[in-house]
């Protein structure tokens, strides 16, 4: 049986792989149900925004900008948490992922309250985009800082 430190060292990459699957799930839900907007991985949003600025018919530009702004805000909050969490990885990773979970549950509550078709409830649509973008911005910083080559 490997020692405790080795098992703990293997834990973080596995957690980040599971969280990568979570980003895939959130992206699938947001792109297919929230009007062609990615809220977990921002690379697609920047490309879609470039398409929209060139006149192509893609997702709503304001929704794309909202997702980008929410992601940036979440990432900056996570960076501040990382700077103040006593320089201990398990604390700030746990706190960031806990905040992400809370924001995703809040998104679930907003979606449940809105009903079947979200695209006609603009407040719920933008609220869900903002909450899920914040959530994945929160988790993006520990994901990109603590383990290399995971998304």
């Amino acid at each position: 049986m490997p020692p405790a430190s080795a098992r703990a060292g293997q834990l973080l990459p596995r957690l980040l792989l599971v969280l990568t699957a979570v980003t895939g799930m959130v992206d699938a839900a947001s792109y297919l149900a929230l009007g062609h907007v990615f809220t977990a991985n921002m690379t697609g949003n920047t490309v879609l925004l470039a398409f929209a600025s060139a006149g192509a018919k893609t997702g709503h530009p304001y929704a794309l900008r909202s997702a980008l702004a929410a992601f940036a805000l979440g990432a900056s909050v996570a960076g501040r948490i990382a700077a103040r969490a006593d320089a201990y990885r398990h604390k700030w990773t746990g706190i960031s992922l806990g905040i992400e979970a809370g924001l995703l549950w809040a998104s679930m509550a907003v979606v449940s309250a809105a009903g079947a078709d979200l695209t006609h409830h603009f407040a719920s649509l933008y609220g869900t985009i903002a909450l899920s973008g914040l959530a994945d911005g929160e988790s993006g910083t520990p994901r990109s800082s603590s383990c290399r080559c995971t998304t």
Partner: protein
Amino acid sequence: MLASGTHPRWTRGAASVAMMVAGASLGTYLLRHSVAVVFGLAGSISAACALAAWFGLPGTSICEPERKVRTDNQGVTRLSNASHSRQSPQCRGEQVVRARSRLVWKVAPCPMSAGQSCPATDQDGCMTGWNRMRAIGGIALLGLLAGMQQQRCRQPQQPGSGSPPAASAP
């Protein structure tokens, strides 16, 4: 690896892609039931990961996770060599290193000087976290500016200049 490269963590990258595809497939399948189910399941998995990270990860410093403090026979504390690519910006001044043997806090000067910046990519060729955030922010800013410019330059549509008019009855 396919191009005969020497990427030491190609398995991790491939597993990351596979997990994202699997997650997207699962999310698409669950969308048949409800969007709320997808967000709820994602939140539950994140909460489980948060608990696992809180209780399972060791309390190593984020500034230098692989650094070890060793005390030699003369009582001089030495720091083992480690790469600086994973250092966060707050580590550029002084960093706090925990001595593993005695569980005391020591303040050791960071070998990287204050004016020196971290490299954009680490040894694996991946962008470091801070530079990835800067790149995404820069691209987002460019997109915002391009969108604003596009809206400003958009002229009101002249009659007859867009799609061909519908055929009128004789």
